[in-house]
């Protein structure tokens, strides 16, 4: 279906090729997962698949790309577009209609198909993505996952043979991502569509794909069927890519096999555990087990949750008075629809708080109430001991750093360095250069200091945006979705910087693993209510809470739970299991 031979591509303005000798053949009906660090040429490769390169983009192309037997360079964009459907990261950039039906009908209408056929294609495409009920819905009222499904349906209406998706789930919440992935898998199996998908969230996609292709610096460095790909786990590590936690665990324990899903891992580990138990290797194992049991059985009674949160408050109160306190906060954009409902919250210095929940649960709204950008309709929000109703958000400049969901809107200087210099210069702080150097260093972008921010990759732009606020002496850092489109390494570097500096950090995220690993406290929101508030251990023990907020526990935790262990990360699980496994293997 796709045949690429010795493909070289250089963008006009850049030195050095972006693609350097790509050779790959993709068969009909294959599901290929393409991954690699940011800026490795993945997106460029995708563009060659539907003819944007070389037809719509400047640059020099050498080599051959054959799609369905057609040499792309000799064909035209329109012909290629009908073979290859493209879906991008952000559905909002692709949908231009105000009604779902129009969006789907757009392509067939352009092809001058007769009305009954358009009608049929619209109906079938919507059916395939499970959106038939929403045919006449306004596109603005859909959730992220639904919008992305509409984008896929609008491509399906063109009846493509290949579906190319560029990070289709990176901007979706876990529930939306699961919806979309399920649909993609269905299309692959039922319609036999060839799928090429780029994604950072390897651990979520890998179990669905047939084959993994890794790229680095414009070259393909690994091309294996999924089952065998993780045998070369060091390649993934070297490129800073996330591998499924179960694979990571088996690798560290020195076990054979690369289980992609929890079930497989448990199937191997369970017998070992049983054996260990009978031979008495696990001391205190039974205790742990009963502990976990009591947590998950106890459900989510409100009073119990209060006890939890009060407990944690009590501890911190002894040493600090809260930086931020919210009492009975209600807030909404319109009078009849409240986004936040009766929020009570105290946040103390040194805490790292994660707000979690589905899209539309009120995370971002809650975040913006903290720096007085939004004011509550009812109740009181206090920051640094002052009621936000009387605080001008801009007077907090220099004490509170806010990084918005879209980092692009935060970058307006000519170079990365200027971006970091902007705040301290405006605030008239001392040691400007030292601050700039420190913040660039902290975000690992010192080598990009003279680059234009908007020419960087998304991950780099986000880090620049964070660096631009870090150069102030902040008492509080607020980040909205800092993990979107980021490599594993960079998330780690960024979060470890905050941990090392004992910064008070509040962030919204869908990324369960990051939250569990770096947040000292997790707040789960649903429909504007706080439904859980506590440490990762406390929150993630309640399966019902997780289900309500459509959160999936990290794989390591799930494996641990099935084995009856209270663990939250691969590290902990490794520690728990290492002794036993070694005991058995000996």
């Amino acid at each position, binding site marked *: 279906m796709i045949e690429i031979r010795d493909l070289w591509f250089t963008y006009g303005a850049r030195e050095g090729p972006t693609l350097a000798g790509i050779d790959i053949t993709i068969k009909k009906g294959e599901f290929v997962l393409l991954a690699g660090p940011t800026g490795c040429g993945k997106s460029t490769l995708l563009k060659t698949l*539907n003819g*944007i390169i070389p037809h*719509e983009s400047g640059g020099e192309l050498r080599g051959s790309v054959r799609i369905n037997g057609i040499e792309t360079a000799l064909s035209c*964009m*329109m012909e290629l*577009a*009908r073979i*290859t*459907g*493209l879906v*991008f990261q*952000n559905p909002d*950039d*692709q949908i*231009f*209609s*105000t*009604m779902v*039906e*129009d969006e789907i*009908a*757009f*392509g067939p*209408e*352009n*092809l*001058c*198909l*007769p*009305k009954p056929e*358009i009608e049929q294609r*619209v109906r079938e495409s919507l059916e395939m993505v499970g959106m038939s009920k929403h045919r006449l819905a*306004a596109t603005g009222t859909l959730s992220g996952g639904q919008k992305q499904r509409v984008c896929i349906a609008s*491509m399906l209406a*063109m009846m493509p043979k290949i579906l190319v998706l560029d990070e289709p789930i990176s901007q979706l919440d876990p529930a939306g991502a699961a919806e979309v992935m399920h649909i993609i898998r269905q299309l692959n199996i039922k319609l036999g569509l060839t799928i090429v998908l780029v994604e950072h969230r390897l651990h979520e996609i890998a179990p669905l794909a047939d084959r993994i292709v890794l790229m680095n610096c414009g070259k393909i460095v690994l091309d294996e069927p999924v089952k065998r790909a993780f045998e070369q786990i060091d390649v993934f590590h070297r490129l800073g890519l996330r591998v499924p936690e179960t694979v990571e665990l088996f690798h560290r324990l020195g076990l054979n096999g690369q289980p992609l899903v929890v079930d497989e891992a448990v199937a191997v580990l369970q017998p070992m555990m049983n054996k260990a138990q009978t031979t008495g290797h696990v001391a205190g194992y039974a205790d742990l087990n009963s502990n976990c049991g009591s947590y998950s059985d106890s459900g989510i009674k409100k009073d119990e949750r209060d006890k939890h949160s009060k407990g944690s408050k009590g501890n911190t109160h002894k040493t600090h008075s809260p930086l931020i306190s919210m009492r009975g906060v209600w807030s909404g*954009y319109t009078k009849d629809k409240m986004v936040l409902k009766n929020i009570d919250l105290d946040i103390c210095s040194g805490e790292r708080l994660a707000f979690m929940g589905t899209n539309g649960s009120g995370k971002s709204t809650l975040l913006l109430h903290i*720096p007085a950008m939004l004011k509550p309709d009812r109740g009181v929000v206090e920051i640094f001991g002052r009621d936000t109703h009387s605080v001008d*958000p*801009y007077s*907090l*400049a*220099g004490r*509170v*750093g*806010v990084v*918005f969901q*879209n980092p*692009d*809107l*935060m*970058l*307006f200087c000519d170079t990365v360095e200027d971006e970091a210099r*902007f*705040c301290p210069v*405006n*605030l008239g702080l001392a040691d400007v250069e030292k601050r700039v150097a420190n913040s660039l260093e902290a975000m690992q972008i010192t080598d990009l200091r003279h680059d234009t921010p*908007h020419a960087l990759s998304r991950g780099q732009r986000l880090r620049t945006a964070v660096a*631009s*606020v870090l150069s*102030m002496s902040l008492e509080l850092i607020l980040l909205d979705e800092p993990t979107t489109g980021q490599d594993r390494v960079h998330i780690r570097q960024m979060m470890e910087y905050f941990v090392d500096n004992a910064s008070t950090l509040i962030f919204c995220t869908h990324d369960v693993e990051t939250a569990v690993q770096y947040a000292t406290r997790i707040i789960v929101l649903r429909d504007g209510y706080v439904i859980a508030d506590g440490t990762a251990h406390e929150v993630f023990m309640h399966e019902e809470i997780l289900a309500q907020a459509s959160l999936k526990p990290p794989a390591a935790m799930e494996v641990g739970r099935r084995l009856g262990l209270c663990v939250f990360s691969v590290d902990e699980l490794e520690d728990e299991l290492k002794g036993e496994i070694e005991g058995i293997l000996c």
Partner: protein
Amino acid sequence: MLSARTIAEPSPGDTVIHLMDPRTKIILLLCAAFIVVALDNPDTMLLLLLIVLSAYVFAKLPVLKLKALGVLLVLIIWGTMYSQALFYSQVPRTVIFTIIAPDAPVLGWLTHGGLFVYKEGFHYGALQAMRSATVLSLGLLMCWTTDPRDMLSGLVRLKVPYSLAFMVVTAVRFLPIIIAEVATVMSVQRLKGFKPTKFGMGMIKTALGVLTPTLAGCVRRAGVLAVSIESRAFRAYPTRTYLKELKFSNLDRVLILTAVVTTATIVTLKILFNLYISEIYYSSALRGIYAFTRGYL
């Protein structure tokens, strides 16, 4: 941030105005444009403006939009009237207020004989203001009560080339998002301790600071959108088919007929009247028409 979007986006509804065919609305707007240019009588013009404004009552728009309209109208009407009152240059003119006397030192010479507020200028300004206000109110009413998709179909059915209509409507659709982004950028800058200055070089710097990220965002978004619609065979053929057909209701037919006939009549009468005034053509049979035109149009 949100109020900006509320003002820019259409409010859905099922009132008479909302249900009108988009083609009817576009034709009405065109007719209004012709009429306001043709009309010179302030009383009739006021009547027209009031008719347009009364349509807002039927459309049941949210208060925020009405407020926005109010502010715009006050600005336009007051601004036009005042500037015309100051700079009215035709004679006869009556001074009702002196701002700078002709014999004032330096200023009198600078302003070339003083600065006055003229009564006729006020009248003339009022007329001009009502012209702009009428078209503006009608245009906004149209945008606020018509879904962009209907606007697109309407334009295309009125023989506007599809690519052009598509571009116009898509631009309008993304406008609210861009407005929201500008608001975000401005608050980001202030959160970073930047104090926007209102005058001089500072103003340019502020504007550039806002433009860079917004434009970068637009370019990026436009790129994605372009590829996305290209891959759905946009403009693959000179024509295309349409899934949805528009249908005129009887009300639409009546409105269009009335509007077109009225416009044609007014324009014809004005032309005849002007021919008579400029002594090119005169017929005694048309004296009744001349009198009517002089009196009411």
